[in-house]
C-alpha cells in the first residue's frame, strides 16, 4: 500500500493560507505563476512562494515593477510584541504620570512618505524614517516604542507568512473571520469531535456536515487516504463542502471523500413520513450539479478573509480573485458507489459525526444510529444545549447507547511575557456543546 506523504514545501497548484501581519488578514490562495495577492491597491505576484517551505516568512517590498514578496527570516524580537494586546498590561511597565502624546508628534507627512516610496525606499527604511522624525519616540517606554514600530511596520512593510492549510489553520482562520460559515465550530470543539468519534485510519466515518465541509476535510485528513468519509445529506441537495477543497488533499485522499443521499443509506423506517424515494442515479446527478455550482462558489470561498476588527493601518482591501488552477482535490465528494453503500449496510459505519447546527439532534440521530456498527462511537456538535439534552434523554430511555455525555469545551489563551503574563483580555466565550456516546447492541440474539 502506498501511504500519503504530507509535503513540507509548496508546489505549483498547491493551496496555501497566507497570514498577513500576524493574523490581521488571512487569505486562502492556490499558488501559480499568475496568481497574485492584493496589498493596498497593488497586486503582488505569489510566484516567489512556489517551492518554499511552509512556515516561510515574506516581506512585501517596493520594487521598480511594483510590489514583490521577499523571503526573510524570523528574528527574535518578532516573537514578543505581536502577542501583546493593547490594554491594561501596558500600565505595569509604564509610568502612568507620563502624558500621552498626540498625533502632531510625527514630522514626516504622507507626501514625504510617498516620495520616499517612489524613490525606492524599502518598507523598513520608511519605518526608520518615521521613528527618526517622531518627536515623542525617544520619550516612550521601550514597550511603547516596540508597539509603535510594529504598527508602522504593519503598514509600510507588511509581512506574509506561508501556512499549510491543515484542519487546525483552516478552522482557526474561519473561526476568527467568518465563524458563522463553520457554525461557530471552534478548534477545540472540532478536535474533541474527532477524538470522541475515534476517527482513525481504515475507518468508515459517516458525517453530517453542515459546517461548509470543515468537518469532512478534518476527518479525511485523519484518515490519510484509508477508509472513507461518507458525507451524508438529506433531500435533493448535498450540503456545500467547499472548505474541504482548501485542504491540500492528494488524489488518494480525495477519492476517500464520498457523498451519499441518506435515502440510499437508510432503510425506510416504520411510521416516518413517506419517503420520497429517489433513485440513486437521480441523487448522484444532483450531486454533480451541485458540484459544478460549488466549484464556482469556491472562487469566492478561496478569496480573502478580511480582518473585521481591523487595526486602522492594516491593509484590509479585498484581494483580486485568485487565478484558480484546476485543483487536485476537484474529485473530492463523488457520489458513493453501490458497492460501498452495500458494504456499509452490511458492516455499519465505524463512527458517526454530526455538525448540523440547523437541525434537531434527535431527529437526525434516531435515523442515523442504526447505520452505525455496534460499539461504535458518535459525537454531535450543537450550538444549543437543549436539543442535545433532549437527544441524550431519548438515548438513555431507549437504551440505545452508553457512555453518554454532554460536554462544553472551554479554551483560554494566555499572553506569556516577562512581567506581563495573564489570560488574553478578549476571549471566545463559547465553543458549543458536544453529545457523545457509544452505540450498544440492543438485541441479545445474534441477529446479523
Amino acid at each position, binding site marked *: 500500500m502506498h501511504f500519503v506523504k504530507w509535503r513540507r514545501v509548496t508546489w505549483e497548484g498547491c493551496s496555501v493560507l497566507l497570514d498577513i501581519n500576524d493574523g490581521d488578514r488571512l487569505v486562502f490562495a492556490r499558488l501559480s505563476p499568475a496568481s497574485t495577492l492584493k496589498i493596498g491597491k497593488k497586486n503582488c505576484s505569489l510566484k516567489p512562494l512556489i517551492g518554499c517551505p511552509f512556515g516561510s516568512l515574506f516581506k512585501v517590498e517596493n520594487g521598480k515593477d511594483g510590489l514583490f514578496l521577499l523571503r526573510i527570516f524570523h528574528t527574535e524580537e518578532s516573537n514578543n510584541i505581536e502577542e501583546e494586546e493593547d*490594554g*491594561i*498590561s501596558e*500600565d*505595569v511597565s509604564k509610568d*502612568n*504620570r507620563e502624558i500621552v502624546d498626540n498625533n502632531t508628534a510625527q514630522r514626516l507627512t504622507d507626501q514625504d512618505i510617498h516620495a520616499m516610496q517612489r524613490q525606492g525606499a524599502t518598507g523598513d527604511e520608511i519605518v526608520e524614517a518615521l521613528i527618526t522624525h517622531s518627536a515623542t519616540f525617544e520619550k516612550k517606554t521601550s514597550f511603547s516604542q516596540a508597539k509603535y514600530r510594529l504598527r508602522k511596520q504593519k503598514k509600510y512593510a507588511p509581512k506574509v507568512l506561508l501556512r499549510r492549510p491543515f484542519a487546525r489553520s483552516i478552522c482557526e482562520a474561519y473561526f476568527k473571520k467568518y*465563524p458563522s460559515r463553520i457554525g*461557530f465550530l471552534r478548534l477545540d470543539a472540532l478536535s474533541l469531535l474527532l477524538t470522541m468519534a475515534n476517527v482513525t485510519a481504515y475507518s468508515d466515518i459517516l458525517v*453530517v456536515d453542515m459546517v461548509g465541509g470543515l468537518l469532512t476535510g478534518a476527518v479525511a485528513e485523519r484518515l490519510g487516504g484509508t477508509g472513507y468519509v461518507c458525507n451524508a445529506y*438529506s*433531500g*435533493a441537495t448535498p450540503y456545500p463542502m467547499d472548505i474541504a477543497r482548501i485542504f491540500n488533499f492528494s488524489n488518494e485522499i480525495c477519492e476517500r471523500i464520498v457523498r451519499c443521499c*441518506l*435515502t440510499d443509506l437508510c432503510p425506510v*423506517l*416504520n*411510521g*416516518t*413520513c*413517506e*419517503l*420520497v424515494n429517489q433513485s440513486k442515479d437521480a441523487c448522484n446527478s444532483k450531486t454533480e450539479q451541485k458540484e459544478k455550482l460549488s466549484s464556482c462558489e469556491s472562487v469566492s470561498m478561496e478569496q480573502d478573509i478580511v480582518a473585521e476588527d481591523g487595526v486602522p493601518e492594516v491593509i484590509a482591501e479585498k484581494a483580486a480573485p485568485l487565478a484558480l488552477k484546476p485543483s487536485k482535490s476537484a474529485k473530492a465528494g463523488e457520489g458513493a458507489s453501490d458497492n460501498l453503500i452495500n458494504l456499509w449496510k452490511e458492516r455499519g459505519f465505524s463512527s458517526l459525526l454530526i455538525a*448540523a447546527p*440547523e*437541525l*434537531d*439532534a*434527535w*431527529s*437526525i440521530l*434516531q*435515523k442515523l444510529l442504526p447505520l452505525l456498527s455496534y460499539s461504535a462511537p458518535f459525537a454531535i456538535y450543537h*450550538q*444549543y*444545549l*437543549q*436539543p442535545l439534552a*433532549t437527544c441524550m434523554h*431519548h438515548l438513555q*430511555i*431507549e437504551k440505545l447507547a452508553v457512555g453518554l455525555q454532554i460536554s462544553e469545551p472551554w479554551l*483560554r*489563551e494566555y499572553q506569556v511575557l*516577562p*512581567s*506581563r*503574563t*495573564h*489570560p*488574553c*483580555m*478578549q*476571549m*471566545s*466565550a*463559547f465553543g458549543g456543546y458536544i453529545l457523545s456516546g457509544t452505540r450498544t447492541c440492543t438485541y441479545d440474539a445474534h441477529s446479523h
Partner: protein
Amino acid sequence: MLPGDPSQAISLQRRIRDGDLVIVYERHDNMKAVKVNEGGVLQNRFGVFKHSDWIGKPFGSKVFSHKKGFIYLLAPTPELWTLVLSHRTQILYLADISFVIMYMEIVPGCVVLECGTGSGSLTTSLARAVAPSGHVYTFDFHEQRAAYAREDFELTQLSSLVTVGVADIQGDGFPAKFLGTADSVFLDLPQPWLAIPSAGKMLKPDGILCSFSPCIEQVQHSCETLKSKFTDIRTFEVLLRTYEVKEARTEASCGDDGGFLRPLPCKRRPQSAGDHDADEVSSDSAVVVAKPAAEARGHTGYLTFARHQCL
C-alpha cells in the same frame, strides 16, 4: 444616586425634577448620564428630546422625541453609572466589583481606603456599601484625575460618603492619620507590593486587604509580601458570561426528504418509543432558546485577598 434617608429612595411616587441626574437609556449598550435642566434638550440619532417633557414623569418612563423616537429615563445606580462614566483609566466591572465588596465584608459603617481612584467606578459601589454611616477615602496620584473624580461624586451626590485625596500611595504609603482605622483596603496599583506594608498598618486587626492586578507576576510578588503580616491569602478570578436569547420558529411540515431532517426544534417522537409522550410541542410553535454570547471579556485581573493578622 444613593438615598440619604427613606424619603429619597426610589418610589412609585417619585417624579423626575429639575436638577435630577437621569440615565438616558437608548439600548443596553448605549446609555448616558444627563442632568435635567428645565430649558435643556438632548439630541441623539432618535431626535430631539426636551428636558421639560421629562419633568414630572416617573423614573423608568419612556419619553419621545419630536420625531417619535424614544428613550427611557432611568434613576441612576452604581451599575448604570459604571456603564456611562468617562473612562479616564481602565475600570473595574460588575463581576469584580460585586465580589470585592462581598469578600472584603464591606457593610454599612465601614471605613474603606482605596488606591487608585481611577475613573471612580469601584468607588461608587464602595460608597453604596458603606452608606449611610461609613466612609470611603480614595487616593490617586494624578491631580487632574482626582479633580474629575470629585466632580463626578458631586454630580452623583456621593461627596458626603467619599473623600478623594491626591497622594502617591505606592511611593509614600497611606497618610499616617488613617493608622489602624480601616476595615478594608483596596489596591489597584502597578506595584501593589510597595503599598502593602503601609496598607497593613492602616487596617484594623482582622481587616481585609484586596489587591487587583492584571498580571500573574504582580500577584506572585504581592503574595510573597503579604506572607509576613497577613493570613488567609487567597487569589481569585471572576468573570461573567452573558447569554443571548432568541425565539426559534419551527417548521412542522414534512419536506420532500420525508421529514427526515427537520430544523430545530420541532420535536417529533420516535414511533418506537413508548411511555413518555412528554415534551411534545405543538406544530409551528415558537421556542425560546439561549446560548452564550460569542465574545466576552476574557480577563480583567486577579483579585488577591488577605486578612491583617490578629495579634
